[in-house]
């Protein structure tokens, strides 16, 4: 958990490459996210979004390249999900953030339990804190959902709310949202976006991954477009309207990329 705040970028990646066998999933990625910047990372399926996220969150290392967190160089040999958590990176996945059959309070602390001696869980304390996160951070009130409820009882938007609440509780400096609104109804999407708004208000850096512009436009400061493993555009919001961005991406995906200039 990060306390020092005298850094310029939440994350900086230089020349990150990732190969699976001979297949290049990422090539020459240079990406910088300011300490309170919200980035919309846009790209089609297979563009390399998930691979990029997995490198940042410590699921696997890149084949080559450098990464800096809060201006500090990361040594990938000692980097892991746990280490990423310690360095203030939290991730909200589209579908693998929560254990379906588990009680909510367990989901808040899985992987970093509050323990008594010998690794036993301090259930009382965990439940109490989980209750606090639900009420204060996410604003769940009187919906018949308690910390004892199983995740399977929650709607898609509520699930993302729990995952976002968890990320904020652990005082992340960088929150990564990996397509958090896929397969949600419009109403649920709005709920999720309001959670994201809370991240922004808290002054945290955020990478919001999506292939839906509608979602990402209103909350992002900058858009980064990823295509076939490469960053092909980085556009700040005041340079482009939603409509222009949409047109750009549409033409881009129709293979007209050489002709379009954002």
């Amino acid at each position, binding site marked *: 958990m990060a306390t020092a705040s005298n850094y310029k970028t939440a994350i900086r990646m230089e020349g990150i490459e990732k190969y699976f066998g001979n297949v290049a999933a990422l090539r020459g990625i240079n990406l910088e996210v300011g300490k309170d910047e919200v980035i919309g990372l846009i790209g089609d399926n297979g563009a390399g979004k998930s691979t990029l996220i997995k490198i940042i969150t410590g*699921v696997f290392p890149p084949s080559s390249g450098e990464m800096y967190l809060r201006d500090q160089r990361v040594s990938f040999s000692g980097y892991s999900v746990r280490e990423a958590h310690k360095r203030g990176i939290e991730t909200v996945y589209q579908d693998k953030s929560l*254990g379906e059959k*588990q009680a909510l309070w367990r989901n808040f602390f*899985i*992987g970093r339990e509050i323990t008594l001696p010998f690794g036993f869980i301090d259930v009382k304390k965990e439940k109490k804190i989980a209750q606090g996160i639900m009420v204060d951070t996410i604003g769940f009130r009187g919906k018949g959902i308690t910390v004892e409820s199983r995740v399977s009882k929650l709607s898609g938007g509520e699930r993302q709310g729990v995952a976002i609440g968890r990320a904020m509780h652990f005082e992340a400096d960088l929150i990564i949202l990996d397509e958090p609104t896929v397969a949600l109804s419009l109403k649920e999407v709005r709920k999720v976006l309001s959670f994201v708004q809370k991240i922004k208000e808290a002054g945290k850096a955020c990478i919001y991954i999506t292939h839906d512009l509608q979602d990402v436009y209103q909350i992002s400061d900058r858009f980064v477009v990823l295509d076939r493993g490469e960053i092909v555009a980085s556009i700040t919001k005041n340079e482009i309207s939603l409509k222009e961005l949409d047109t750009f991406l549409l033409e881009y995906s129709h293979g007209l990329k050489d002709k379009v200039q954002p």
Partner: protein
Amino acid sequence: MKHGSSRFAFLGKIEGLPIAAVLAILYVVFIFTAPSVFTGYRIYMSFFQTVPPMLVLAIGLTFIITAGEIDLSFPAVVALSGFVFTWVFKTYHAPWLGFVLALASGALVGYINGLLVARLRVPSIMATLAAQFFWYGVTLLIAGGLQINIEEIQTNLIHTVFVGRIFGVFPAQALWSLGVVIVFWFILNRHKFGEAIMFIGDNADVARVMGINVEATRIKLFTMHGVLAAFAGLLLTIEINVFFPTQGQGMLLPVMAAVFIGGTSIAGGQGAIVGTFFGSYIIGSLEAGVVATGIGGYWVQLVEGLVMAASVILNVIIGDEGASLLSRAARKWAVPSQAPPGKEPAARGDA
């Protein structure tokens, strides 16, 4: 629960309640059908003597199934650990050394299972099926297919400690197995390791992205089950004072049945230790009960099948969902009866 719908919801929260009810009903039926046997204490003492090895195996298997895996190799471990113990005891007269080495043999088998599953990504059903054949084969080979009698163990301290009769009647292994149940309930429900097991069984990807070392946890899990299976083999061998190479071989299906009727889901993610406890006693009591009833040994399997089906169905009905259905229904029945007949509550004043 604050939002008051839950007169009976607590029923769903009492772990293992449906299956405890099945056991109770079963004993009530047996008391009527075989009163001469089931009103005495001896039959229960005999269950406390025969069920513990099965119960210990079932507790380990509950963990395995909760993690979304399966282990078919524990019968071989029951044989192997029995052999290691009796051989060391016979050869060196060192029962405690034999005890430790037997547990170690179980740990070894489990560790190798874990490596195959976690590191080489062999599906656990295949890895442990192969292990069952292999280690059973190893045991047969080194034992030369012969049984080893260790009657002299009856005068040894280890016999008293693990399978002695407390107050002359109560088998000590029942307490040991109960201890295993309690300790492992806490490990599954209140320990990081148990929580990791549940999340891995639920969704291993979630566990991984939340920072759990899935592979290491799986290896620990299989090793743990190996040790428990070895302990079960020891309780069995020391109780019957003999090692025979086929020991444990009939236990695979009954132990699996005990776990499943206890309410542990085949899908993984949730394990019912208390349910497994009662499930083991149901499976362990059925045969004796049916035979004592006098309807003939050919009925045993049929009745076992019926009781298993009934237990699983009951678990579904009184499970999480079932309890809320029940309480909703009960509210409907209960509300009119709160007011004496003919005298409507004041709130409905317009009557």
